[in-house]
């Protein structure tokens, strides 16, 4: 029937509108739900969400060892050409020549924090850090070398 | 001079000057705006004469209805940005002459004609009185014109519906 459809449409519309108004009304009265961060004021107590991605860093142990084998999987995975892995050949204890990472160059100014390099890494050498205050006066300062000087490959990582 | 008199002359000037500009300007949209201000001046005159209902109806009908209608039809059918062509000199002169002549004749008649002095009893001019008179059938009732206007309105509505329905002729 036309009339029943007409009125049921109205009832449905009013119901859904009221539902929306209830939601916004809830937020209006519950100020603890506010998610705005007063950023520069609360720098000391700022808590970032767990999955926030600020920049790519390489984890180093206390003995200045990292887990990067220089396989360049991250370099291949990066859509922007952010990462450039410079490799060298090292002679290990058995006298064998082996590929190792010389410089892990990371261009922060090109990075979109897409997380693809971290997923591509077979040895979990790199991860995303939560630092986000990256402003500098010169663009060249954004090009970083992630492996610390004289760092070694961790034992047992192939 | 009383304040009322000054207000009257201001309203009269607004009405007549903007009416003259409405027929004189060459830009059609401005013409519509001047017309509207002239009609609002008339509404002001009604207010001045203490016919508040007539004034309010004047504003509702002209500002809310007819001015918007005219402006929309200007937008939709005319090249509203272009100037309209000036009418030929001969026609302007002839029209102005006819208007002035008619005006002169009417004014002569007006000045010569003595109008009766107003009756003492003032009738109730409130909205409800007007409403009652609209539906009264007696000596000064307006039931017949009211019904005729209603019929006209009905015909106009039916015409609208017919025109709107004819928009899709080849659909079943």
């Amino acid at each position: 029937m036309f009339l029943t459809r007409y009125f049921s449409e109205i009832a449905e519309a009013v119901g859904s509108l009221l539902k929306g108004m209830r939601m916004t009304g809830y937020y209006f009265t519950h100020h603890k739900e506010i998610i705005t961060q007063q950023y520069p004021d609360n720098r000391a107590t700022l808590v970032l969400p767990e999955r926030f991605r600020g920049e790519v860093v390489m984890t180093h142990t206390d003995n200045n060892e990292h887990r990067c084998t220089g396989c360049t999987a991250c370099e291949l995975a990066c859509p922007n050409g952010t990462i450039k892995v410079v490799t060298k050949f090292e002679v290990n204890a058995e006298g064998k020549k082996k590929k190792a990472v010389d410089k892990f160059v990371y261009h922060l100014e090109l990075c979109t924090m897409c997380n693809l390099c971290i997923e591509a890494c077979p040895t979990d050498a790199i991860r995303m850090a939560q630092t986000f205050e990256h402003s500098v006066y010169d663009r060249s300062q954004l090009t970083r070398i992630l492996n610390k000087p004289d760092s070694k490959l961790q034992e047992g990582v192939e | 001079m009383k304040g009322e008199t000054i207000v009257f002359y201001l309203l009269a000037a607004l009405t007549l000057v903007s009416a003259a500009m409405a027929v004189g300007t060459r830009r059609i949209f401005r013409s519509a705006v001047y017309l509207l201000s002239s009609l609002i001046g008339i509404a002001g005159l009604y207010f001045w004469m203490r016919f508040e209902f007539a004034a309010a109806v004047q504003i509702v009908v002209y500002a809310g209805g007819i001015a918007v209608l005219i402006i929309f039809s200007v937008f939709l059918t005319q090249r509203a940005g272009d100037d309209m062509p000036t009418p030929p000199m001969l026609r302007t002169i002839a029209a102005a002459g006819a208007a002035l002549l008619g005006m002169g004749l009417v004014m002569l008649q007006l000045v010569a004609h003595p109008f009766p002095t107003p009756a003492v009893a003032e009738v109730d001019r409130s909205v409800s009185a007007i409403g009652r008179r609209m539906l009264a059938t007696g000596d000064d009732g307006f039931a017949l014109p009211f019904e005729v206007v209603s019929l006209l309105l009905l015909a106009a509505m039916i015409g609208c519906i017919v025109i709107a329905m004819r928009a899709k002729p080849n659909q079943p």
Partner: protein
Amino acid sequence: MMEPGLYHMLFIGAALFFIGIYGFLTRRNLITMLMSLELILNSVCLNFIAFNRYVWTDRATGPSMSAVPRI
């Protein structure tokens, strides 16, 4: 200047009427002609109201009659 009264109103009505006539004769455009016609109609309404205000104050014919053309 005189105290405004019936003759002033009738003068305004007549002037509006003939301004409308002038516009109606000079314009060659349907919408502008319609606008001139509106002026003429309004002058008529103004006369109705003025007569009701200054001459036949015992009847409310003016506002009723001027309401009819507006409807």
